[in-house]
């Protein structure tokens, strides 16, 4: 790959030192999509550390049977807070952060369509997270023991009814999700408007980078998914404080109704989280295999297909509820069929790699890990889609292992890949490849030790959400190994944080285009100026920088 010499302009920019308070004021009042994007990412990383710490406490408790490291009440709060935090205050903000940062740059725009809505969405989501954690001070859990919600991130009725959950811990959960839901809708609206209206001249929809396409589909899905969740939260508030009986079974309400509301949000949510990971892969895998993405139209079609099908699979979370044979059969089919567009994606990535010259940078190593792990996650997903198999596997540690394979093995790996790939653009400096390799291999070992083995206690009958277990079940040694893998991942994550900080000051200067890439964000300086592009670019193909670098053989000759 070509190497660039540092531009002095970049250095000069970083040298100007405003007063500390000016910097804070600048960030708090900013409406710049890049700064908002970075705040989303920073905010999510802080909560990643918090929720990761919660996971470690749970793993210490579960490492031996009949352990008394934490009380049952504390443990139940830990898994509630870990799940809620990871989904709403790590996954969503970090993915929106990258989207915010990258989408305007990739479509040749100077900002999002609604910059002030963008800032509003960030701050309301951020305060939602703080409100959730304020519950540790202000809430009052089951049995009046105080503090954070302990009803699970899924908060099944009627455990959330006031008779079973007195105090205000559940209210903090409800309100924080309501707030962050508003922020999510705002940002989704912004992304849709930006991609529809703000593309630079020549960027037709079928020339849009796949990342932008996938964020568009994700955002449209967020519209559909967040609504039922918000509605359910409002109904729950009415139940708890206005004498309504939607979910209050003691007064004739329906526990199953809550499950439907929750999962009609919850399952599309999984795809809302995973599509951005696919989006990163669609940009990173081609650049490091030095080939155009294979089957661009099929990739777009598969994404839209996943978007639609994912809206009809929610009740596969409810195979053991007693919905009846026909409902179980329908949701089995809908869930299985989603494997087809997902398979198309995996095969198209494979074909992109085929015949390429694959550069194993740390970013690409994480992407390769993503491919294997997402394959396995998909296959265990097929097992769980088989309703009778799910009667055994559902609500067991097999499910926990399966969705952590998706969330960590696929999404987090692809996020690490994205950090190594776009950090140079965001900061102007390269992340250390040496620390990065340590980070990758340690995290890979820790991940597989934890989540490969975690499937097995599920097969041996270990249910989820238990604070301890009996010694005679044969789960002990596996749980000890699973826990030790968790600590290896924690050490690897610390290396990553160290890399982020160290490279910010000491990293090699990146220059505008360190990876010899092809999309528009690499045509401006690193980091980009507040206005992104001095002159709004005009594009003639999906890979404008390829056309620029290969005028003899531009992409526009081959695209439909």
């Amino acid at each position, binding site marked *: 790959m070509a190497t660039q010499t540092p531009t002095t302009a970049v250095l000069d920019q970083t040298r100007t030192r405003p007063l500390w308070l000016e910097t804070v004021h600048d960030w708090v009042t900013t409406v710049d999509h890049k700064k908002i994007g970075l705040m989303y990412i920073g905010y999510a990383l802080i909560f990643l550390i918090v929720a990761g710490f919660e996971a470690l406490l749970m793993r210490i408790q579960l490492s031996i049977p009949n352990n008394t490291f934490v009380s049952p009440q504390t443990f139940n709060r830990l898994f509630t807070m870990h799940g809620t935090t990871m989904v709403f205050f790590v996954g969503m903000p970090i993915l929106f952060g990258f989207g915010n940062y990258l989408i305007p740059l990739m479509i040749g725009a100077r900002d999002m369509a609604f910059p002030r809505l963008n800032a509003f969405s960030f701050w309301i989501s951020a305060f939602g997270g703080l409100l959730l954690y304020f519950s540790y001070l202000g809430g009052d859990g089951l049995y009046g023991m105080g503090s954070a919600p302990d009803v699970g991130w899924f908060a099944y009725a009627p455990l959330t009814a006031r008779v079973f959950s007195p105090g205000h811990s559940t209210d903090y959960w409800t309100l924080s999700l309501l707030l962050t839901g508003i922020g999510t809708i705002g940002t989704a609206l912004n992304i849709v408007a930006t991609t529809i209206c703000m593309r630079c001249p020549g960027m037709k929809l079928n020339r849009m980078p796949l990342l932008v396409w996938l964020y568009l589909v994700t955002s449209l899905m967020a519209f559909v998914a967040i609504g039922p969740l918000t509605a359910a939260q409002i109904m729950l508030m009415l139940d708890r404080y206005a004498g309504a009986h939607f979910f209050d079974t003691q007064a004739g309400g329906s526990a*199953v109704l809550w499950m439907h509301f929750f999962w009609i949000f919850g399952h599309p949510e999984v795809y809302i989280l995973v599509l951005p990971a696919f989006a990163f892969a669609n940009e990173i895998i081609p650049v490091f295999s030095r080939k*155009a993405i294979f089957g661009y139209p099929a990739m777009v079609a598969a994404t839209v297909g996943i978007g639609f099908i994912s809206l009809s699979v929610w009740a596969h979370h409810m195979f053991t509820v007693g919905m009846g044979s026909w409902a179980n059969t329908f949701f089995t089919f809908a869930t299985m069929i989603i494997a087809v567009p997902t398979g198309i994606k995996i095969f198209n990535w494979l074909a992109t790699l085929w*015949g390429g010259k694959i550069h194993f940078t740390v970013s690409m190593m994480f992407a390769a890990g993503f491919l294997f792990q997402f394959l396995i996650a998909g296959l265990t997903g097929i097992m769980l889609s088989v309703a009778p198999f799910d009667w055994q596997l559902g609500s067991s540690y097999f499910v926990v292992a399966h969705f952590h394979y998706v969330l960590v093995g696929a999404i987090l790996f692809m996020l690490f890949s994205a950090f190594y790939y776009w950090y140079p653009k965001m900061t102007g400096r390269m992340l250390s490849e040496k620390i990065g390799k340590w980070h990758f291999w340690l995290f890979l070992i820790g991940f597989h030790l934890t989540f490969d083995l975690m499937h097995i206690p599920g097969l041996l009958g270990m249910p989820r959400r238990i604070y301890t277990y009996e010694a005679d079940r044969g789960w002990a040694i596996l749980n000890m190994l699973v826990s030790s893998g968790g600590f290896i991942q924690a050490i690897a994550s610390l290396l990553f944080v160290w890399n982020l900080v160290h490279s910010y000051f000491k990293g090699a200067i990146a220059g505008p285009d360190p990876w010899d890439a092809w999309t528009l964000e690499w045509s401006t300086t690193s980091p980009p100026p507040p206005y992104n592009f001095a002159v709004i670019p005009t594009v003639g193909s999906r890979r404008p920088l390829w056309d620029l670098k290969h005028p003899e053989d531009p992409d526009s000759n081959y695209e439909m």
Partner: protein
Amino acid sequence: MASQMHFAFVDGPTNIFRPAGTSAHSIFGLSMLVLGITLCIFLVVAGLLLYVLLRYRHRASSPEAEQEPAQIYGSTQIELSWTVIPVLIVVILFLATARVILSSEQTRRPAGALDVIVIGHQFWWEYRYPKLGIVTANELHIPVSEPSHPTPTSLTMSSADTDHSFWVPRLAGKMDLIPNKVNVMDLDPQTAGLYLGQCAQYCGTQHAKMLLRVYVDTPADFAAWIARQRQPALEDPAAAEGRAVFQHNACISCHTVAGTVAAGRFGPDLTHVASRDTIASGAVINTPANIRAFVDNPAHFKPGALMPPMHLNEHDLDAVTAYLTTLK
């Protein structure tokens, strides 16, 4: 470590791959098909991925290292093939699955099936045998079902408070117990013995110690068990003092001892509590010392259990323990 793993897989009391009942067997058969198909897919795709990553890695020593590889933008035929083949696999899997779903949920049960009503409570199980007039808790007794002479048990399940789930992996998949909803599930065990499990739906603080014990009895053992459970509570004159303490305290507002003033339904029926192997929903074995500790303060074994500490003096504790241990 190896011996522990060996134990878990070969003798694992809750291993889903050691089926001992009709329902668990049919799930086991289907799951082997699913595992086979997914393993084949894994080997093919992971093999291809590994091949591509190794074969096409960038080699700095190669003479064409600086040249970009040939750009290929797609191929309708190839993409069609990896759309159609997965569709076919999905159809096969779906048909096999639909067969098991429809057969297992729509079987007609024989006239002689035993009916048991299962009611989930925070954090224990109530079992009622309506045709036999038996009420018990936490330890379910059912007859073994010989293939030549099937005597399945039909569980009619609901909940008194939050959601629970009945999961005894070796006998059947799980089924949720949901308030205001009645679910039905059949157990058809072919081998006598004790089968373990536990609540599989988060139901509150002590979800973890809401354990399940299903005793599959031979016909003779089952008949003997029924005969004993149908008798009224034993009135041992030696335990008269303990009975008086029991009946003059709050015990009777929550517990039933058939034939006495104790008729509460909030906690487990204690009429024959001494005939059980465990107390506190399987949390500890049934010994006088454990009963005494549990009555003194249930949080000793089950923090978060809804029974309050009874605050009895030492003398009364001993007396109540003596009384409870006579309730054979």
